[in-house]
C-alpha cells in the first residue's frame, strides 16, 4: 500500500510520541535526586502537542486509508484530553516525587495512555479503535500497580488487568465477526453495509457481535455489570492514577463508544437502545445505592463515577430514527463527558491534597477542613454539589441537557428521565457527606493543611471552570453540537 501519510493530521500524536520517548531516555540519564525533571519535560511536550492540535482546528483530514480522521469531533476530544493531561501531570508531580515511585517510568506510561486517548476520537476503523483502546488500557494496568510494596495496589493492577483483557478478548471476537459480515473494518463502511437488509442468520450474528463489542467498551466506562474492577482499582492505585482512570480513561471509552454506535451501528438502534437503557438504569442505580454505603473517599468517588457513567449512557438509549433527537442526544452525551471530567478531576485533586493525612482516606478525615484549608474546602463543596446536579453549577446543565433530550424523545425517554432524577436526588445524600464533614463538623487538629501548590491550582482552576460554566452554560454548550457525528 503506497498511500501517503498525512503527517499534519497526526502531528499532535507524533509530538506526544516523541515526548514519550524523550522522557524515557532522559530519565535513564538523570541522577536519582533529579528524576522529577521528567515531569516538566512531559508537560512541555503536552503543551507542544496541544498547540499542534490548535493549528488543526478547522481542518478535515483523513489518513491511513480513512482509519484516522481529524474532524471537529476528534479535535474537541483531543483538546480536552491534552488539557486533562496537563492537569493530571500537575497533580501527579509532588505525589510521585515524594512517594517512593519510579517517576520517569510513570510519566512515560501515563503519557502513552494519553497517546491512546488522543488516537481514540480519530479512530474510524475497528482495528484503530482496538489499538487506541489497548493503548489507553495497557499502561493503566501497570500504573495502577505502581505502589509496588502495597498489596492493595497489586490487587488493583491485577483486577484491572484481568477484567481488561477478558473484555478486550470478547470485544475483539465481536470485531472479527463484524469484519466477516461486512467485509470492512471502516466504521462508515460498516454502517453502510449494516443499513442494508442482511439475510436472517447474518442479521442475528451482527446483533450478537455488536453486543460483544459493546461489552468491551462497557468495561472501559465501568458500566454495570462490568464495573467490579473500578472501586478496588481506584482505591488501591496511587490517587493520581485513580484520577486519570476516572476522567481520561473513561472519556476515551465514551469517545470510542460514540463513534461506534453513531457511525457504525446506527441502523441497528432498535436492538441496542433497550440494552443501553438497561445498562444505564443498572449502572446509575447500583452506583448510587452502593455509594451511599461508602466511608472511604476514593471508593465513594469510584462509585460516584460509576453512577455518572450511567447518566452518560442514557443518551445512547434515546437513539431513534429521528436525526434531530440523535443529534441532541449526541451533544448531550459529549457535553456531559466534558463537564463530568472537570468535576471529577477537581474532586480527585482535593483528595490528592489530603493524601498525606492518612492512607485510606475516610470521609471523616475531612472534618473541619473549612478551618484548615478554606480554599480547598470551598472547591470540594463546589465539586460535590455540582456532581449532584444542583444549579447554578456546571453539573446541573450537564444533567439538564440529558433530561431535555430524554423528554424530547418521549416514551422510554420519559421513564429514563424519571429514574435519572430520582437517582440524582439519592446521590445528593452521599455527595453532601463530604461538605458536611468539612463545614459542619469540627476537626481534631487545627493546624493548617499545606497542600502542594500545583494541586491547589488544579482544584481552584477546576472549581472556577465549574462555576463559570454553571453561570454561563453557553461557554461550553456551544461546542458539542458543532462536533456531531450524526448523519456523517
Amino acid at each position, binding site marked *: 500500500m503506497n498511500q501517503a501519510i498525512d503527517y499534519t493530521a497526526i502531528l499532535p500524536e507524533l509530538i506526544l510520541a516523541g515526548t514519550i520517548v524523550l522522557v524515557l531516555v532522559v530519565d535513564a540519564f538523570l541522577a536519582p535526586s533529579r528524576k522529577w525533571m521528567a515531569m516538566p519535560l512531559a508537560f512541555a511536550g503536552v503543551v507542544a502537542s496541544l498547540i499542534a492540535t490548535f493549528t488543526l482546528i478547522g481542518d478535515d483530514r483523513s489518513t491511513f486509508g480513512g482509519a484516522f480522521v481529524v474532524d471537529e469531533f476528534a479535535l474537541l476530544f483531543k483538546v480536552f484530553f491534552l488539557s486533562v493531561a496537563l492537569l493530571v501531570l500537575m497533580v501527579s508531580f509532588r505525589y510521585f516525587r515524594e512517594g517512593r515511585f519510579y517517576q520517569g517510568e510513570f510519566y512515560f506510561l501515563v503519557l502513552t495512555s494519553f497517546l491512546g486517548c488522543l488516537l481514540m476520537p480519530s479512530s474510524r476503523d475497528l482495528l484503530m479503535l482496538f489499538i487506541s483502546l489497548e493503548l489507553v488500557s495497557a499502561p493503566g494496568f501497570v500504573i495502577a500497580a505502581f505502589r509496588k510494596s502495597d498489596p492493595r495496589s497489586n490487587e488493583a493492577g491485577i483486577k484491572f488487568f484481568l477484567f481488561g483483557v477478558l473484555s478486550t478478548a470478547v470485544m475483539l471476537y465481536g470485531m472479527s465477526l463484524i469484519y466477516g459480515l461486512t467485509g470492512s473494518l471502516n466504521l462508515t463502511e460498516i454502517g453502510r453495509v449494516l443499513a442494508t437488509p442482511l439475510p436472517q442468520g447474518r442479521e442475528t450474528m451482527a446483533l450478537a457481535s455488536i453486543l460483544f463489542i459493546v461489552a468491551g467498551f462497557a468495561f472501559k466506562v465501568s458500566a454495570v455489570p462490568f464495573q467490579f474492577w473500578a472501586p478496588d482499582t481506584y482505591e488501591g492505585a496511587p490517587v493520581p492514577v485513580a484520577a486519570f482512570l476516572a476522567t481520561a480513561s473513561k472519556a476515551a471509552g465514551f469517545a470510542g463508544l460514540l463513534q461506534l454506535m453513531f457511525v457504525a451501528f446506527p441502523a441497528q438502534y432498535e436492538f441496542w437502545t433497550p440494552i443501553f437503557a438497561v445498562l444505564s438504569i443498572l449502572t446509575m442505580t447500583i452506583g448510587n445505592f452502593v455509594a451511599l454505603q461508602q466511608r472511604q473517599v476514593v471508593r465513594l468517588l469510584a462509585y460516584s463515577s460509576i453512577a455518572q457513567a450511567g447518566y452518560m449512557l442514557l443518551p445512547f438509549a434515546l437513539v431513534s430514527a429521528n436525526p434531530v433527537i440523535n443529534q441532541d442526544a449526541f451533544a448531550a452525551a459529549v457535553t456531559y463527558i466534558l463537564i463530568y471530567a472537570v468535576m471529577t478531576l477537581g474532586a480527585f485533586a482535593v483528595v490528592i491534597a489530603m493524601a498525606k493525612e492518612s492512607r485510606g482516606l475516610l470521609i471523616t478525615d475531612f472534618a473541619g477542613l473549612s478551618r484548615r484549608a478554606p480554599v480547598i474546602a470551598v472547591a470540594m463543596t463546589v465539586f460535590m*454539589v455540582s456532581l449532584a446536579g*444542583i*444549579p*447554578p453549577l456546571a453539573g*446541573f*446543565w450537564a444533567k*439538564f*441537557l440529558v*433530561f*431535555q433530550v430524554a*423528554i*424530547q424523545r*418521549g416514551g422510554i425517554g*420519559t421513564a429514563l*428521565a*424519571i429514574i435519572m*432524577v*430520582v437517582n*440524582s*436526588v439519592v446521590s*445528593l*445524600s452521599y455527595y*453532601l457527606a463530604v461538605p*458536611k464533614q468539612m*463545614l*459542619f463538623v469540627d476537626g481534631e487538629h487545627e493546624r493548617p493543611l499545606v497542600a502542594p501548590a500545583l494541586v491547589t491550582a488544579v482544584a481552584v482552576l477546576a472549581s472556577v471552570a465549574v462555576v463559570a460554566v454553571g453561570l454561563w*452554560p*453557553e461557554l461550553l*454548550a*456551544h461546542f458539542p*453540537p458543532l462536533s456531531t457525528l450524526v448523519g456523517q
Partner: protein
Amino acid sequence: MTWENSAITIATLLPLVGALVIALVPRQYDKGVRALGIVFTGAALVFAIAITFTFDYGASGLQFQLDTRWIPAIQARYHVGIDGISLPLYVLTFVLSFLCAIYSWRVVPNPGKTKAFLALMLMLETGMAGTFIAFDLILFFVFWELVLVPMYFLIGIWGSANREYAAIKFFLYTLFGSVFMLLGFLALFFNSDIGGGVHTFDIVQLQQYAASGGFSHAFQLIVFAAVGLGFAVKVPMWPFHTWLPDAHTEAPTIGSVLLAGVMLKMGTYGFIRIALPILPYGAQKYAPWIGLLAAIAIVYAALACLAQKDLKRLIAFSSVGHMGFVMLGIATLTSIGINAAIFGMVAHGLITGMLFFCVGSLYDRYHTREIAEIGGGVMQKLPYLGGVFAFVAIASLGLPGLAGFWGEVMALLSSYSPAQSLSAPLFRAFMIAGGIGTILTAGYFLWMLQRVNMGTLPEKWKAEAFGDVAAVEWVSWVPLLVGIVGLGLFPGLLTDVTQAPVNSLLGLFGA
C-alpha cells in the same frame, strides 16, 4: 439599559454582589461585615421601594420587563418582569431580608463565622427575589434551586442540636419535588408551539398557548401532577410537610424567618403563576384534591400545634396551617380566592416572620425553647417582649383588625362559592373544616400564650438579668408590627394591587 428594564435585575442581583464583597473582606472586621450586610440589603430594599413608587398600578401586564438572550443552546431566555401578583412578594423578600440583616447586628448564632453567615443569607435573598420575577421556566428553576444550598448550610452550621438531620432532610425532600417539577417544565417546553413548531420556555407565551387550547387534557393532568409536586413540597402541602417542622425548629432565627416568611411563598406563587394559568384543565381537575389537602392541613396542623412542647416547633406547624388557608384560596379558582391567597401570603410573611423573631429573642435570653422550661411569666419578666409576642400571636390567629384576619376570611368566603366548574358542597365542607381550624388555631395560640406569657414566673428565672427588647430588635421589628396593623386596617392597600392582575390571570384561565 434604562431604569425600566434594569431595575428589578439590579435589585435582585445586588445581594449576590454583596455576598461576593463580604467574602473578600478579611475575617477580623466582624462588625464591618455586619454593617455591609445591612448596607447591601438596605440598598436592594431602596431599589424595591423605588420600584413600588414607579410601578403603574393601573396598567395590566408585565412591567419592568427585560427579555434577552441567555442560553441559546437550550432556548432559555433571561425574561424578567413584575406585575401586581409578584410585586408584594418581591417587596416582602427585601423587607424581611433587610430586617434580618439588622437583627444580625446584635447576634450571630453559634459558631460565629459572620462572613459566611451573611454571605449565605444574601445569596438566599437573591434566589428568593429572583423566583418572583422570573418569566422563563429555566430561569425560574435556577432561582428556585439557588435557595437550597444556602439554606442547607444555614441550617446545618448555625442551627441547633438536630441541625444536620434537619438540613439534609430539607434539602433532599425539596430537591425531590423540584426535579419532577423540572421534568414537567421540559414536557411543557416540548409540547408548546408558538408557531412553526418552535418551542418555548417563556411563561407568558406558554400561558397564551394554553389559553388557546394548546395542551391536551391528558397531558395537562400528568404535567400538573409533576409540576404540582414540586410546588406542593415547597408550600408545604399536607402530606409533604414533614420536612418543615424540623427545618424551622433547627434553623437559626433569621433562617426560620426567611424560610417561613418568604421561601414557603415560592411554592404557592408557583401555583398561581405557573400551574394554574398554563395548565387550566389540570387545575380544575386537581382543585378538589388540593382543597381537600388544604382543609386537612388546616385541621391537622392545628391539632399538631396543640400537642407541641417546643415553642418553635409549634410556630412551625402553625405555618403549615396558614399555608393551608392560602392553598384553599387557590383551590377555589376564584378571584376572591387567589386574592385571599396572596394576601394570606404577605400577612403570613409579616406575622410568622415576626413570631420567629420573638421566639429567637426568647431563646437568646432563656436558652431554651421548651414551653415547660420557660414556665410562664414572660409578661412579668420581659413586659415588652411578652407584649409583642402576644400581639403577634393574636395577629396570627386571625383577629379582625390585624393582617391575619383578611387572608383567612377571604379564603373561607371564596370557599363558600368556588368556581363554576367545582363542586360547591364539597368546598363548603372545606370551609367548615377551615372554620374549625380557625377555632383550634385560636385555641393553641391562646393556650401557648397562657403557658408562656402568663402565670407565675418560675424561681429559676427570677434572678436572671435578661434585658428586655433591645434597640436593635425594636428597629428590626417595628416595620413588621406597623405592617401587620396597617394591612389589617387597610387591606385595600394590598388587594388594590393584586386585584387587576388576578382577574386577568383568571381571564386567561377561562374558569
